[in-house]
């Protein structure tokens, strides 16, 4: 601030010098005043609501501000039930506010507005001849998100790294419909392209219809091949009143087993080539755990049923496939610690079965192929085994099985000094599993039953160990030291350290 003339400008300078301070003070004052004001307003509102919570009100209008691209008919379905004209009795103020709040959350969940939808309540002007004394008007203020967003990045997963680009077109027809184009390339999933169109049904964020098209190519080193997929599907998902979720979908996929390793086993060579799977899948999920990655109480039940190739479905493969997945957790109180100790015990059980059928209306059942059979083992299911380390093996290849069962028991303990509120836990675990191929029997049902019975033969393949768990907001990380205790010859255990990243652990 070197001013050439200092005599006449002194005043100016002094002003300048003082200026920032003054501004700051003023701003502070203003902020304080505002805070006091808003606190007062808040208090007043709270008092008002408190004293008037049972006051009967009628909602005469709801207005959503800043939603220029959203369709009127789409919003009507959300707001109409609230309007008093559509109610047989007036709300209490409390009820009205709750209802409006739940509508705001619903709006938020469509993912077309920026987070933070503000709600205002106003009384219609008394000069309006149509208004009654109990009438209130509701204003919702939202800010629409960009209709097109482009995202690129990299993913790191279990023994996999990939880069992706993602293009989303939101709110296409003004009813929260979206189109997502996804392209990625990586070490294991060598390339994947996917286009998904998703739309909520009847303005309900829990009821959705989805159509998708995909093309991908994935390396399967545990079975010496590469699988190339091209397909399309349609899904419909909804939630029940009790909070469980259903999904029903059809998918038609052209699968190619190709790019075999030099020493791929005869079993894999025999399955190489093209097949088309045309199937209907139903998934049911009830998740009542308190945390998705390190639960301390609650349970999860998930069932997946799939029918492929049978009757009018056609295709090249036919089977019925069922899978059940359960897990539960209970907190363990430790004597001497008040309240929640943070120690919890969780157990999981998974089982699945593939029942071969005849394609179409034929009578000759088809044996299962490598791409339909189950694989078991690895850091995210039966720990202490390599990926697909369990089950039948032909030379270097894990060829998969038709029936499996796996269970685990884990004890999660907070780190001694760090405490239970951090996402870190120590873990002790023991898990076991069996994966079997169908036996050769006269009829299919006989071979399925005898194979299921065989699950109980001897001690299941088993491993135990301990490790560290870290629950990141997007995934669970584990580092375990494991020892395989019981094996079938050929099965690949993992002695020593094993690292796992995943969303869904056994």
């Amino acid at each position, binding site marked *: 601030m070197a001013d050439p003339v200092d005599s006449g400008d002194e005043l100016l300078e002094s002003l300048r010098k003082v200026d920032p301070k003054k501004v700051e003070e003023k701003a502070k004052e203003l902020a304080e005043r505002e805070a006091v004001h808003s606190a007062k307003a808040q208090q007043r509102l709270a008092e008002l609501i408190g004293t008037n919570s049972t006051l009967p009100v009628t909602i005469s209008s709801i207005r959503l501000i800043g939603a220029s691209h959203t369709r009127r008919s789409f919003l009507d379905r959300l707001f109409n039930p609230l309007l008093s004209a559509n109610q047989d009795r007036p709300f209490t103020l409390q009820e009205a506010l709750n209802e409006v709040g739940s509508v705001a959350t619903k709006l938020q969940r469509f993912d077309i507005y920026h987070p933070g939808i503000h709600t205002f309540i106003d009384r219609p002007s008394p000069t309006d001849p149509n208004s009654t004394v109990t009438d209130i008007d509701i204003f919702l203020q939202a800010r629409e*998100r*960009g*209709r*097109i*967003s*482009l*995202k*690129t*990045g*990299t*993913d*790191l*997963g*279990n023994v*996999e790294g990939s*880069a992706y*680009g993602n*293009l989303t077109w939101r709110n296409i027809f003004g009813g929260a419909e979206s189109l997502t184009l996804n*392209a990625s*390339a990586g070490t294991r999933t060598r*390339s994947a392209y996917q286009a998904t169109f998703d739309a909520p049904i009847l303005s309900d964020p829990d009821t959705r219809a989805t159509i998708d098209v995909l093309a991908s*190519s994935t390396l399967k080193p545990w079975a010496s091949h*590469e699988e*190339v997929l091209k397909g399309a599907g349609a899904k419909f998902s909804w939630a029940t009143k009790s909070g469980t979720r259903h999904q029903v979908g059809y998918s038609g996929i052209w699968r*190619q087993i*190709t*790019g075999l390793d030099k020493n791929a086993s005869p079993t894999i060579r025999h399955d190489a080539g093209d097949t088309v799977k045309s199937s209907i899948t139903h998934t049911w999920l009830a998740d009542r755990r308190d945390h998705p990655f390190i639960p301390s109480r609650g349970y999860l039940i998930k069932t997946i049923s799939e029918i492929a190739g049978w009757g009018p479905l056609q295709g090249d493969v036919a089977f019925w496939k069922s899978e059940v997945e359960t897990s539960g957790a209970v907190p363990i109180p430790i004597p001497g610690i008040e309240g929640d100790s943070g120690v919890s015990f969780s157990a999981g059980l998974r089982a699945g079965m593939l029942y071969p059928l005849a394609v179409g209306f034929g009578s000759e059942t088809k044996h299962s192929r490598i791409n339909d059979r189950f694989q078991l083992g690895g850091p*995210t299911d039966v720990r202490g085994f390599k990926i697909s380390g369990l089950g039948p093996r032909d030379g270097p290849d894990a060829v998969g099985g038709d029936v499996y069962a796996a269970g685990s028991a884990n004890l999660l303990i907070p780190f001694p000094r760090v405490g239970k509120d951090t996402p870190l836990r120590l873990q002790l675990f023991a898990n076991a599993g069996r994966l079997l191929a169908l036996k050769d029997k006269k009829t299919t049902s006989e071979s399925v039953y005898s194979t299921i019975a065989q699950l109980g033969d001897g001690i299941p393949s088993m491993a135990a160990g301990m490790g560290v768990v870290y629950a*990141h907001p*997007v*995934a*669970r990380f584990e580092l375990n030291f494991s020892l395989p205790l019981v094996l079938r010859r050929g099965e690949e255990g993992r002695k020593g350290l094993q690292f796992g*990243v*995943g*969303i*869904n652990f056994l």
Partner: protein
Amino acid sequence: MLELHVWGPAFGLPSLDAHCLAAIAYLQQAVPRGKWQLIASCNPALSPTNELPALKNGDIWIGGFRNIFHYLAQCSAGEWVLDAGLPEQEGADCIAFSSFVEANGQPLIDLSLYVSTQNYTTTTRPLYSALLPLPLPYLTPPSIRATAKSRTAHLGLSALDIDSDDSSPPPSQSIIPESLRRPRNTVSSLLSASPEASAQIRLDALGTNFFEPLEKLRGRKQFFVSESQFSSLDCLVLGYLSLMLVPELPQPWLAQCMKKKFPSLCKWTEELRKTVYGPEVTIHDAFLTKLGDSELDLRLKRLRGRGHLPWKAPDNGGAIGVGSVFLSGVADGIPVVGQLRRNTRMRQHGGLTTEDGVESSSFQYLAVIASVVAGLGAVAGYMFHQGLISFGEREESKESVSDNGGLGAFGEAGAALGFYASQMDEQVRRQRVMEEMNETTHVPVVEVDVELEKQGP
């Protein structure tokens, strides 16, 4: 008067293509002097089979070496036939060895003149530049090279081409697309001093496999199948062998292999080459350009010696002719359009009648125009795509891995279009910049978030 259109002279030989050399030898031996003329051309599209050599008799065009000698037999009522009167076994040998020479000789020439980077850049490409009018040297040699590479892919010697860092394709033609195969490592071959040196053993073996049966077949005879008769097989062999022996290349493995192991073949080639093609042919001979010689000198020169070839100055059809060759080349270089054009080629059988030729060429002309328009659109779209969406580049490079032929050629088309673009009006360019600026003002619609996150499988 018959006109034989061939690729122009090189290496002192009257043509740089083996089939053209064979056709010249055939006409030289079969057709009386004065009944035919030789023209150095650069437009294979004139021929109904889209290749040179091509024979023109009045309005009739015949393409390809085999079709030419069939036609000569037909139009001269069996007079101008070299193979006439060969005994049965010798006739069969003639057929079988012709196939052998074409099938096994072509890859050797491909490797030597086109695939080998050093030979191609220092010798073959400059030759074409001398022969072809601008802008064809930007287009024709690379496309010939690409074909040569695809023909020799099964030999697993693509390491000779050090421009391409992609590994050698698998040694088979199957329905599995390229992208699904595991890449093979050629780092070691790239590190060695010259790729030819590391591939020496394989190249020698290839050469020997080709020369040995030929030498055995000739034995002590004067010609390949007969003691006295110069047959169509001799024309073909002469064409191929002289193109292997005569050129002086920086990587002379093929000529060396021939000189070292098969001296008698070399002797035969040298002798016959002189009798059939005459002394060293230069570009000036072919285009009849004057080198200070008077008209009389020139005429004297032509009359001297029986081996001298009846050259006639080419008529390139001016700028339109060159332009049409250029545009059809560009169209072939653009993936989808090129494929469409190739698809139409199957219907055009090697017609021997005039109507066929006219029809196909006018059809081709239309196709050229349509495909260039489509091609320009495609390139523009591609640029837009490149500019706006950042991961476009990655997708593109993936595709080029999966589809060696198509997109490799895209680069060619792009380069050629770039050549024209540089001549674009300044004003047009400014306008384009303005448009691009406008494009950027629309960008805020798009939110771009780049994130690095860890996620489960």
